[in-house]
């Protein structure tokens, strides 16, 4: 008995798994080295802080998107609409509700968007891509209707000053992203809800037969992403002092990129929030390098798009291979 117990404590660590755990940090270090060579202004504290600051808001979306991917929900394409809703309501409601309540209202509206997604996908079992494409279009249309297609401007407020400020030399936006990541990492790896996400994404029917609340879990991942998209919108609106319906355009893709680069499978069943944090940093650095390297900004889409396709391709290849054996 004792002998078997000791045997079971040894974790299997094949060279492959070691490589895959270290690949994200290695990639970050490699990017830093390449960046230092490409541009003298890359490896400076102010540049790196700026890069993180600029990507913290979309990083929040990526954290939520991790849950969506892990539970087998593919991706949430309604992110731009929920970001816009969060941003527009935050600024638009300031005049009558005050800055704090308005921000809360922005979060609430985006979360409701997530709840609608969750109901459609988790409970009615509509394909997530179709469902979120639809809700995204509806919500974006609604937001444009709401403000008549123009720009909403915010008023100066202590909340906006706080969001734009820094603590201990680090921008508040980065703090918020770090805290959210710190909370959500154990939510996925160490709570029943997180375990359910992994199980539902790994084998929906088996999870259902194992008394996992499959519908609730899947819906929950989309509600979480809605909430975080809303937070992203609130922060963007407050720090920019203005918001337009197109404020979150392309954010769904940046978030998916970060999730995939971090190594979370888009096909569900595995992944971690910490890896997505790594993915956010990598995508941010790549974007920064392209600009510092003197390439046109449009190249960012080309590079990240290619990376996503390649990363997903590798994932599919290894899944096939694993499945056959």
């Amino acid at each position, binding site marked *: *008995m004792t002998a*078997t*117990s000791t*045997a*079971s404590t*040894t*974790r*299997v660590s*094949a060279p492959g798994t070691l490589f895959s755990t270290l690949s994200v940090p290695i990639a970050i270090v490699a990017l830093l080295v390449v960046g230092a060579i490409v541009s003298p202004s890359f490896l400076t504290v102010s540049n790196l802080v700026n890069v993180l600051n600029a990507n913290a808001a979309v990083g929040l979306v990526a954290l939520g998107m991790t849950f969506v991917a892990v539970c087998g929900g593919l991706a949430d394409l309604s992110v731009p609409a929920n970001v816009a809703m969060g941003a527009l309501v935050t600024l638009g409601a300031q005049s009558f509700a005050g800055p704090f309540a308005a921000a809360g209202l922005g979060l609430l509206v985006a979360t409701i968007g997530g709840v609608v997604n969750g109901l459609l996908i988790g409970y009615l079992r509509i394909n997530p891509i179709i469902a979120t494409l639809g809700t995204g279009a509806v919500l974006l249309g609604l937001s444009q209707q709401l403000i008549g297609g123009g720009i909403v401007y915010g008023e100066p407020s202590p909340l906006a000053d706080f969001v734009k400020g820094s603590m201990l030399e680090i921008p508040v936006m980065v703090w918020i992203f770090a805290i959210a990541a710190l909370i959500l990492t*154990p939510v996925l790896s*160490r*709570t*029943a809800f997180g*375990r*359910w996400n*992994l*199980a539902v994404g*790994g*084998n929906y*029917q*088996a*999870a*259902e*037969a*194992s*008394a*996992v*609340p499959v519908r609730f879990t899947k819906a929950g991942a989309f509600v979480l992403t809605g909430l975080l998209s809303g937070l992203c919108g609130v922060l963007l609106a407050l720090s920019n002092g203005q918001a337009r319906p197109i404020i979150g355009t392309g954010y769904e893709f940046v978030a998916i990129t970060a999730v995939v680069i971090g190594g979370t499978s888009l096909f569900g*069943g*595995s992944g971690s929030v910490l890896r997505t944090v790594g993915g956010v940093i990598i995508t941010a650095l790549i974007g920064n390098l392209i600009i510092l390297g003197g390439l046109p900004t449009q190249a960012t889409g080309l590079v990240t798009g290619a990376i996503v396709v390649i990363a997903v391709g590798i994932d599919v290849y290894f899944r096939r291979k*694993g499945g*056959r*054996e």
Partner: protein
Amino acid sequence: MTEAHHIALRMTNISKSFPGVKALQDVELEVRAGEVHAIVGENGAGKSTLMKILAGFYQPDEGEIEVDGVRVGHWNPREARDRGIGMIYQELNLVPDLTVAENISLGGMPRRGPFVDHRAVTQRAKDVLGELQADIDPASRLGNLSISQQQLVEIAKVMADKPSIVVFDEPTSSLGEKETRVLFDVIDRMRRAGIAVIYISHRLQEVMEIGDRVTVLRDGRHIETRDVAGVTPDHMVRLMVGRDLNEMFPKLDLEPGERVLAVRGISREGQFADVTLDVRAHEIVGLAGLVGSGRTEVARAIFGLDPIDAGEIELRGEVIRVRNARKGRSAGIALVPEDRKGQGIIPGLSVRENFTLPVIQRIAQGVVIFARRERAIVRSLVDRLKVNPPQIERPLNAFSGGNQQKVVLGKWLLAKPDLLILDEPTRGVDVGAKADIHEIIGEFARDGGGVLMISSELPELLAVCDRIFVLHEGLLVDEIARADATEEGVMRAATGQVAA
């Protein structure tokens, strides 16, 4: 070797290693044209690997393959097929929305110019179905056929390529007795047509019945090849496990306690009607019936996976309304499903994560799962269930079928149910693991639980169960006490020869 036997296939000194495992070592296999050559062995003995080498999915590290006396080198699945090797797997590789004829020609549609020649497709299907004496309309949609008919189409698809060697890998595991008969007739005709048939099965009775010669593999090695006529199933089991299994199905004699489950007149449209049965504490009750008789559906309904239209379910004297698996679990019911791959395991999750899934909320107690507590629980269970190797962090899909089944069974033992429903708990499981699983079930009953067990293997039901309920076309037709149960009696009821 006399000249009278034409050797269709010879595999010599085949060795194959995977990272960390020696899957095959110096394995020999020689199959004659016109014989049914059975390959038996426990899970992990190397049968599948050997067949995947033959089919071109794997390359051997060492060894030679000769087909019809001609040595073949490195080859891929397509080349293997072109050289006359046909594979029929347990899972069907068919498209439900296409017609039978289209499925048969799927690999290479006859064409006229750039267009599919539908007349030729139909003709080809008619020819090959005729050869198999299968009464199936080539124009019907595949998905509308029964599983048994679909399997015949799968065989027809392989036969359309005119193979000289056909491999059947566990073909009967999803078939009932009647369908198995049909399959055996087909195999017999192949044998008479001079085709070399390789037949892999865990069911030794079938090997005795259909096989001419049998090769036993154990731990990746060739143990023995001999004529089936000279061996008994006991002998084969001894060769397979390398030890004696004195009693394959040990039975504990327990005094039944109070009633755990009472099902009264439950019905579900199109599946079963007016089913009444009960299970008492310390009791193992069998649910017999052919495939399609509604046994799996009854089990799912009791657990709450499918809703019932009428009737009531009482657990420990209280009427319960189960609408999903969560309600079933809370009521004290557990179900080990028939389809292990589809509904039992989460392949990518570790043994630990699979084990604790139904009770993870309880382990989390509040918010966070305490890793140490979780590991301790899983480790004690892994020891008790003899999961091998006892590595709880390894993904479950890296384990053999028997070990996976132990984990699926074990995760429900953790939920401490009053009633354990088992749907084909030992299907596709090797002899050693089967004995372990029976022991686990016996212990559960001894400790006061009630068991409702479905199995297609009658000897298993007869040996393990105290009472057997028999379903036929969705109706409960018989209840047989242990003392009166015979294979013939159960079979008569299951085939509808007993009035309800």
